[in-house]
């Protein structure tokens, strides 16, 4: 299963990763090799087998509707790269 360079660029975009033109071919080769390993799965028949997203058959615990978090804005914003007027700043987004 070989990936096309265009597919690799598309995946990189979806994942918000930048791949230089000089690296894209290497990426494509490496990823293709990994995908080749996935081909082994095809030979197994899995009709009627339920997919298993969790290793145990557990169900979700429900938490009571109680406010138990306090305002820790200072602590959390102390580690942020760009704060202004207590807001997280990013380059302007035009909608």
């Amino acid at each position: 299963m070989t990936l096309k360079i265009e597919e690799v660029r598309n995946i990189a975009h979806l994942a918000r990763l930048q791949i230089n033109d000089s690296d894209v071919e290497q990426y494509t080769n490496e990823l293709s090799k990994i995908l080749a390993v996935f081909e082994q799965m095809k030979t197994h028949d899995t009709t009627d087998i339920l997919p298993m997203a969790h290793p145990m058959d557990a169900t979700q615990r429900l938490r009571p509707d109680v406010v138990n978090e306090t305002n820790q804005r200072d602590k959390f914003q102390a580690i942020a790269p760009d704060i202004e007027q207590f807001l997280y700043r990013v380059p302007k987004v035009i909608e």
Partner: protein
Amino acid sequence: MMSGWETVIGLEIHAQLATSSKIFSGASTAYGAEPNTQACAVDLGLPGVLPVLNVEAVKMAIKFGVAIGAEIGKRSVFDRKNYFYPDSPKGYQISQLDLPIVGVGSINIQLEQGETKVIGVTRAHLEEDAGKSLHEEFAAHTGIDLNRAGTPLLEIVSDPDMRSAKEAVAYARKIHTLVRYLEICDGNMQEGSFRCDANVSVRPKGQGELGTRAELKNINSFRFLERAINYEVERQIELIEDGGRVVQETRLYDSDKHETRSMRSKEEANDYRYFPDPDLLPVLVSDEEIEAIRQTLPELPEQKCHRYINELGLSDYNADLLTSSREVADYFEQALAFAPGLSNLLVNWILGELSGALNKSDLDIQSSPISAEMLTHMLQRIADNTISGKIAKEVFEAMWLGEGTADEIIESRGLKQITDTGAIELLIDQVISANPNQVAEFQAGKEKMLGFFVGQIMKQSKGKANPGQVNQLLLDKLKSL
């Protein structure tokens, strides 16, 4: 609406659920807090944090499902919707895709001609709200406030069953009333707790296949909903008739220009790569739990409306108005409990004077300075002739300003109606003898002079003479002259 074309509308409504804490964390959901003071580690999507599901959000969703007669998803799953946007801190939104908590249900709406139309609800699912992007704060930057991130949302998806903007608004209003009745959402569209997105497409009449739809966003009132849909329908028809094709896209409604515009930077085909969230387990709900929730349902708006019409004899119009808000209906019923025979008076005064006063002071009925009990006592004084309807307005205003109960005000201001025949006859005599010319005119055939005499008598009595008695006794007197 140009003939030959049919409009197809589906609505996606996001209702913020009225829980105290967020859907996956224990931070507060209270509106209006200082920026980023209600965004805990989980809401910020810090490395290592994990979501835990709020029981109340689940209950509220089930409540809604039961109220619309929907199947409840006994096993529902949370999925991650992956996309990058600064108001979505984890880089994915936790939502539900294939196994939502609420399945197929329906809502009835009243059409203009009075018929009922059934609008299908495809599903309703739980998901988390994003934060807020503020574009006005900085020149070259956008500021992100994550207080809202993690607030529980119930996304209610309708079937594409609506065929006009009016139908869409009727549906939206019905859902709005319902979620407020159920106390699962405060329905405040200005604050963003109730958001309507409309999927609009057109097709030639008779065509089975749906046309390409546009999704309209940024609509925060029912009026704008109607306008936005109407604008969009016209735009699409014109576009097609001019030889163009409708593009599947998201369009924002501009409430100043009253038009919809394409969202510039939005990716058209966003691959969300949904997969079950490994940090959350499937939610199991039992029949017993669903039944227990069903038992807690209040009388729903539709049932209540029918009861008002059939049992209390209210008009469709009045019943509809009274039941459009649970608080108003509750007030009405509370008042009625004090005086079951006064329903007509109550209807008139609640929909009339009380509504007017509340609107003017920008209050809702729960904050009314005049309680149901107080209003009822005043109306009883009308019914037992202690005061006239006109005087009652004065009493109402005084009660509104906190002067006391109806009886206290009537007493202190001496507003009791004069019903004593002798006293009224005395007043009539006084007025007749003071106005011989007008008497002559009346005797000459001018019936209208009655109004003059009544006016004078009312003036003399400072409005307290019982109008009915005045009319009767005056006529008798004049005839006997």
